């Protein structure tokens, strides 16, 4: 009975005065914060996010945002309840000191915690060559800011868009490009689009769909090098099938 009382006291104390830090201010971090409050955590809650935006929905970024229908900063997630957290947005958590129970931030601040939740998700894979990756017009798509950048690049009516990788994101972007009337090449190392996720049968169907809609789909082909002009804007891509393409936008997926 005494042990049970002690545990109950500890739980009550933690729920009242405990400190929880959530690293990651996107869907998982937000819903975790809401769940903690819903379960009666009344202590100090801090949410740290490297992006300056409050939690937003990512799936629309590769669809309605690129089409230009919805603004990139108009995909904020609905809240299901109040979370009464301290939001530290626009500053990345850079390291964790487990012995002193502190999260260190990029600006040098330290945030102490009793319990820590890491909900940072994943990140876009950058182009493998850093010099080529730095060329203007070479874009990855993961964040709202990147979606805004890509949307603007597509709206500027580039001569040709090259998409590296025919997974879900690459295929979606190709679809948007065709809807916008843009010439688009998709280079995919595998034998078809979506093969990694959905297999060859669906891959063949997806390949047919893409080609029927005017996508220049190159399967079994990888992009080997990107070249820029004097102003540092990407202009050419060299593919493993021996061809060279004139491109104004390259999306790395």
């Amino acid at each position, binding site marked *: 009975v005494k042990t049970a009382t002690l545990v109950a006291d500890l739980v009550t104390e933690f729920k009242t005065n405990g400190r929880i830090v959530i690293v990651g201010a996107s869907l998982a971090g937000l819903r975790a914060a809401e769940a903690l409050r819903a379960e009666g955590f009344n202590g100090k809650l801090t949410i740290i996010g490297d992006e300056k*935006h409050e939690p937003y929905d990512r799936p629309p970024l590769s*669809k309605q945002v690129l*089409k230009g229908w919805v*603004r990139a*900063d108009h*995909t*904020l997630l609905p809240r299901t309840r*109040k979370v009464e*957290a301290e939001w530290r947005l626009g500053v990345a958590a850079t390291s964790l000191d487990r012995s002193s129970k502190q999260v260190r931030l990029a600006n040098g601040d330290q945030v102490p915690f009793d319990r820590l939740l890491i909900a940072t998700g994943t990140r876009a894979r950058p182009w493998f060559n850093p010099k080529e990756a730095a060329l203007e017009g070479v874009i990855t798509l993961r964040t709202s800011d990147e979606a805004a950048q890509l949307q603007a690049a597509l709206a500027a009516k580039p001569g040709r868009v090259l998409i590296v990788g025919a997974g879900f994101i690459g295929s979606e972007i190709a679809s948007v490009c065709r809807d916008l009337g843009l010439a688009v090449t998709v280079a995919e190392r595998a034998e078809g689009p979506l093969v990694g996720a959905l297999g060859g049968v669906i891959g063949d169907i997806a390949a047919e769909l893409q080609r029927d809609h005017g996508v220049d789909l190159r399967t079994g082909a990888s992009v080997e090098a990107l070249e820029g002009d004097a102003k540092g804007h990407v202009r050419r891509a060299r593919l493993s099938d021996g061809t060279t393409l004139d491109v104004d936008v390259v999306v790395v997926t």
Partner: protein
Amino acid sequence: MKGEQVTRCEANGERRTANMRIVIDLNRCQGYAQCVPLAPTVLKLNGEEALMYDPNPDDSLRQQVLRAAASCPVQAILVERLDEKREKS
């Protein structure tokens, strides 16, 4: 686009809009498209079954959006409730 009413939260420079907020669980969505005619400026079909939506539509469309959400056979549309004001910090 609508919704230029952006205010700033002094505490951390976070942006807030006066628009409503919705999210559609696209894993749950089966493309029944019952919602589309009920809020045609917020929900659109891309092709035959891919749903696209405006996640932060103008607040004047709230009734339409609530009806659309209620019509979804798989309840894939989550609408932020008006009576629960978003927290200040």
